[in-house]
């Protein structure tokens, strides 16, 4: 029962525009991930949703209600902080109960003894203690309700922070990189717990992260931002298969998509000395578009091949082994890559192969391209090239 609508939301700090004209709409019970590199404005956007930042222009709607002028506590949203932001001077139980105490707060609760008794009375009332007890049980916190946050491990603190959010039974859960202070292993298991939580407690989730793996696995919708501007909005699958521009293409997927300069020549694609026949859906894109393109190829669409037609020559630059997979960096002899964000580029492409590759640096190899999932971008604007309107789109555009 809580759809979220952002309508041309902008936030400026002095002369800097942190969030620039972002509009999006998600229905109830979605898991929206705001994704992007450091400083892209994703946290600012979340804080505007929460009411911790004011909106410079634009509107925020929760269901039919406009909320951007309301104080944080009136928006019926809970917020989970990256730093957890537990109250260090309160027990776990009091931390979780705190939002419920604040609902019935009177000014005289600040008085030393009387106030303490009143708060304890709320804490021990059947409704409240039931709800808190159930929440604690879901999060496996029952054993540590009387401890203080400083005595807890990172994962336990994280769960207390989740408990404090859940106990309010809000319409919307806002989470600002809640897993980034945990170690790699714990992060994975907490990821699963948050997904479970979303399924079980309901509500709309908005989750900020810089980690595309988290975004891909947790989100039902992803909004990818860069320098305050939304680059693409869609399901994880849409974003992975149909990146709107080279930034999205490179940001999503590990290792990132390779971008190689190519030339469209009468139904075929020329990369360096290699010429590749285009499958129909790519031919439709090629038709009527310019000759020079950037060819986006996922690392798993490239394979190390024997000598043969339709392959590119190169030298192995680096082999990384990640468990079941090997990532092979190959420096191409004649083709030019366009990975601008990482310095010189050096014409390297990344190839994933399953198993333990025995290749070594400086081995001479040939690279085969599987054109099925290849996408084309404009070398000038970086935008995805799409088929002319009359052509059929093999994948629905996002």
């Amino acid at each position: 029962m809580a759809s979220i609508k952002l309508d041309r939301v902008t936030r400026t700090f002095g002369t800097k525009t942190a969030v620039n004209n972002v509009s999006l709409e998600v229905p109830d019970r979605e898991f929206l991930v705001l994704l992007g590199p450091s400083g892209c404005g994703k946290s600012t956007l979340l804080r505007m949703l929460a009411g911790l930042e004011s909106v410079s222009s634009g509107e925020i709607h929760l269901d039919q209600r406009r909320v951007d002028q309301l104080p944080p506590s009136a928006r019926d949203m809970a917020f989970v902080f990256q730093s957890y932001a537990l109250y260090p001077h309160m027990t776990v139980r009091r931390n979780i109960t705190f939002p419920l105490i604040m609902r019935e707060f009177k000014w005289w609760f600040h008085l030393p003894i009387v106030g303490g008794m009143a708060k304890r009375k709320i804490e021990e009332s059947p409704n409240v203690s039931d709800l808190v007890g159930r929440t604690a049980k879901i999060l496996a916190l029952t054993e540590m309700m009387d401890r203080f946050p400083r005595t807890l491990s990172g994962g336990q603190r994280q769960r207390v922070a989740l408990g404090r959010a859940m106990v309010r039974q809000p319409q919307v859960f806002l989470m600002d990189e809640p897993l980034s202070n945990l170690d790699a292993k714990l992060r994975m298991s907490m990821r699963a717990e948050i997904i479970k939580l979303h399924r079980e407690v309901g509500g709309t989730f908005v989750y900020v992260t810089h980690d595309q793996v988290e975004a891909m696995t947790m989100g039902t919708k992803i909004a990818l931002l860069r320098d305050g501007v939304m680059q693409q909005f869609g399901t994880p699958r849409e974003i992975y298969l149909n990146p709107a521009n080279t930034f999205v293409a490179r940001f999503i997927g590990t290792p990132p998509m390779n971008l190689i300069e190519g030339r469209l020549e009468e139904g075929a694609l020329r990369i360096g000395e290699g010429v590749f026949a285009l499958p129909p859906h790519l031919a439709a894109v090629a038709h009527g578009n310019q000759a020079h393109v950037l060819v986006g190829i996922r690392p798993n669409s490239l394979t190390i091949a024997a000598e043969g037609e339709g392959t590119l020559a190169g030298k192995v630059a680096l082999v990384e082994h990640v468990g079941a997979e090997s990532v092979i960096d190959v420096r191409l002899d004649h083709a030019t890559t366009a990975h601008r964000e990482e310095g010189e580029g050096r014409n390297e492409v990344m190839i994933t192969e399953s198993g333990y590759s025995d290749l070594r640096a400086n081995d001479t190899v040939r690279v085969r391209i599987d054109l099925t999932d290849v996408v084309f971008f404009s070398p000038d604007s970086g935008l995805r090239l799409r088929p002319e309107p009359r052509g059929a789109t093999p994948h629905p555009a996002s």
Partner: protein
Amino acid sequence: MIRSGRGGKSFRVVAILALLGAAAFPLYWMFVTSTTPSSELFAADARLIPKPSEIGVYREAFGGTSVTTWVRNSAIVAVGTTVLSIALAIFPAYALSRFRFRGMGVVGFGLFITQMLPEAMLVVPLYAIFGDLALLNTLSGLILANSAFTVPVITWILKGAIDGVPIDIEEAARIDGCSRLDIVLGVVLPLVAPTLAAAAVIAFFHGWNEYIFAQTLISDQDLRTASVGLAGFVGELSTPVHTVMAIGLMYTLPAVIFYLFVQRYVVAGMTAGSVKG
């Protein structure tokens, strides 16, 4: 905490000894002097060991003076100054820590200005104002005057402590439904408790020891504070030095007791450093 090798260790021992010496010596000196007969006091080689036979000086000191009334008045003034100046300092300290605004420099100047002005300078105008407001010869007037001097210092100290409270915790409280006042009283204050204790000690001691205002603004004998009473003794040439020291030690005792009362918090602050969630 640095766990270090030999160099660090000797450094540490020297530092501790220096501090302990500085801490204990004055009290010890007072005690020794109080048990030293006047005849020996200005002897070439100063006495360093107390003389138990002279302990009777304390009975003597209690007998002849209205020490209890003085101490009671001083206690009222000191506690009043503590409560009032902390109450007045909390909000400016919070504002200085959390808000950025044009003119912060001017406010910072203001925090020091009462320290620039000698108390002697303010006695005349204060006397005039207090006369108008019927605050002359009242302990509450004295509390007010003292607080004017402690508030800036305490504001400054609390501001530093509030700087250390993570802003996230305040934002969490806003989300949970706290007003700004609720945040200051319910979240920020408990987290700066150790510094609050240190500030209380400073205010208490200022109120306890203040002399010029207590001398000028109070003329009623029954409202005289211990600092003024004591000075009266010191001024009289007939009072032997060891009696002065005995009374002085008794005068110091309540302040020490107050300190021991809050020291748990102060020391907690010393060992804990900044607040972490």
